[in-house]
């Protein structure tokens, strides 16, 4: 029997694939060594090592204020979107929801509608409600942007484990609320936590809506980065970009660990269910 023929073709494909991964990673990763260069003028390779631009970031009140504002907005949006999205996911999977098709359409709305359209529309309404440049405004806007991702993540977690387990709890006399907190929630917990993580990252990185609804002294980190890129490309930005990239790697590793935990839990729950039935 002939195995896959044409080893040359396969090698070419492999080479192309790895070249594309280099293309994907290189522009972001090349910033990391450059951020440690001593000169005001970014170079690759850097001719020296210095923490100067990191110090500059930590000394600059405007950078720090923007960072804390983004952290606040991210945490509030993550909690808000996770709560609201988990409740909706439950209604979609376990409930009899009137107008289900329309609601499903609304869930994907914030992803389908271009962010610039939504950003300008929010800007218009938020100006009139005096919500621009406020934490409440950002929390509301980012919660809505993160909701589709939360709903899909929690839906996936709910579909992954056997609904019979919750029904068993109900038929043993537990009410729907107790059934949820004692059976369902522990099983989908890793999914809910990774949904919250998604929501936080979406809010923390969100640039377009932030660009429009930021205030003069209440702006998010992406908005501050945007201004800095636009007016003066200082190496402080390279330091900020490096820290954000490392943060993303951390978040991805955490997300991966959560996914593994969810798979183990689903497998364990299925095993237990099998013993009884």
């Amino acid at each position, binding site marked *: *029997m*002939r195995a*896959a*023929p*044409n080893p040359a073709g396969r090698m070419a494909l*492999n080479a*192309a*694939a790895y070249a*594309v*991964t280099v*293309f*994907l990673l290189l522009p*972001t990763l*090349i*910033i990391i060594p*450059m951020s440690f260069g001593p000169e005001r*003028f*970014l170079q*690759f390779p850097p001719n020296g090592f210095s923490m100067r631009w990191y110090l500059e970031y930590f000394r600059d009140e405007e950078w720090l204020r923007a960072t804390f504002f983004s952290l606040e907005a991210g945490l509030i949006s993550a909690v808000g979107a996770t709560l609201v999205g988990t*409740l*909706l996911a*439950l209604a*979609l999977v*376990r*409930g009899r*929801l*009137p107008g289900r098709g329309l609601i499903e359409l*609304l869930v*994907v709305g914030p992803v*389908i*509608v*271009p962010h*610039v*359209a*939504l950003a*300008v529309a929010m800007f*218009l309404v*938020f100006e009139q409600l005096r919500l621009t440049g406020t934490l409440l405004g950002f929390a*509301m806007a980012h*919660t*809505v942007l993160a909701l589709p*991702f939360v709903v*899909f*993540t929690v839906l*996936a977690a709910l579909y992954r484990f056997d609904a019979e387990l919750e*029904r068993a709890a109900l038929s043993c006399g537990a009410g729907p609320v107790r059934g949820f907190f004692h059976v369902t929630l522990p099983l989908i917990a890793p999914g809910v936590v990774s949904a919250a993580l998604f929501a936080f*990252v979406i809010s923390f*990185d969100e*640039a377009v809506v932030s660009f429009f609804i930021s205030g003069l002294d209440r702006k998010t980190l*992406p908005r501050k*980065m*945007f201004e800095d*890129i*636009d007016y003066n*490309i200082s190496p402080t930005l390279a330091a900020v*970009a490096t820290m*954000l*990239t490392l943060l*993303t790697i951390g978040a*991805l590793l955490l997300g991966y660990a959560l996914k593994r935990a969810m798979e183990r839990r689903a497998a364990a729950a299925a095993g237990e269910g099998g013993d009884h039935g």
Partner: protein
Amino acid sequence: MRRPSSFLLAGRRYSPAASLLLAAPFLLLIVVVFLLPLATLLHESLFLPSPGLQHYERALAEPVYLRVMLRTLRIAAQVTALALVLAWPLAWVMSRSKGLGLALLAAAVLLPLWTSVLVRTYAWMVLLQRNGVVNQWLQKLGLTDEPLKLLYTEPAVVLAMAHVLLPFMVLPIYSALKGIPEDYTRAAQMLGASAWASFREVIWPLALPGVTSGCLMVFLLALGFFVTPALIGGPQQMMIATLVSQQVREMLDWSFAGALVGILLAFVLLLTVIFRRAVRLDRFVGQG
């Protein structure tokens, strides 16, 4: 044993009333923060200062604006084509890898997907600006005498946008290719099909849903993209999102900005409805 029905439960499921209660916070938020703002903006474009389609006519009739819209379509199409060409080999090799190899390739796709768009756009500016890394190296290697103008050109916008949107192309194609058993291609080749014929007759038709989904996602995202065109393209390479921003922030012409948004929305919704089945958002979550 039959479970008792109650306000909260209807047989094995939550009752309609309980389900609506669970969905209520979502509905409230989506109405107030999503539907209402969009409706207000579109109302502005249709009724202010007087009812009519004059803002839409202006957007589609004046050559300046028409040029921006054509450029937007052209760039979005180029970005989609470039992303497809780059994504295919990566998705193919991913679909035939296991273990560490797959983990590394997947990390290469997921890290950019979750890295801030601003960080990635900034990286391209550092590479492409007048005194940027690319120009430094071109001169160091003696390939050019003076810095080339790379930033604020259409190819730079296409390249950077394709880079930013590439994960949205790779992931759906990878999902589709992963579902094709290796036996299929082996069987085709044992029956005498050439590599090209087995690609054309077996792999491509089975991968097509993933390809459609990826192309649609990238094209839609590219049409409304703001950050990368604004910074890499500058005013010279204005796309529709940058034009909307300019109308709002510099001209304070909300009605005209609303009309531009209306045109963009109509286009995006039309494409979404036509390719309804290709819009598979679930592919982008739960992958991390």
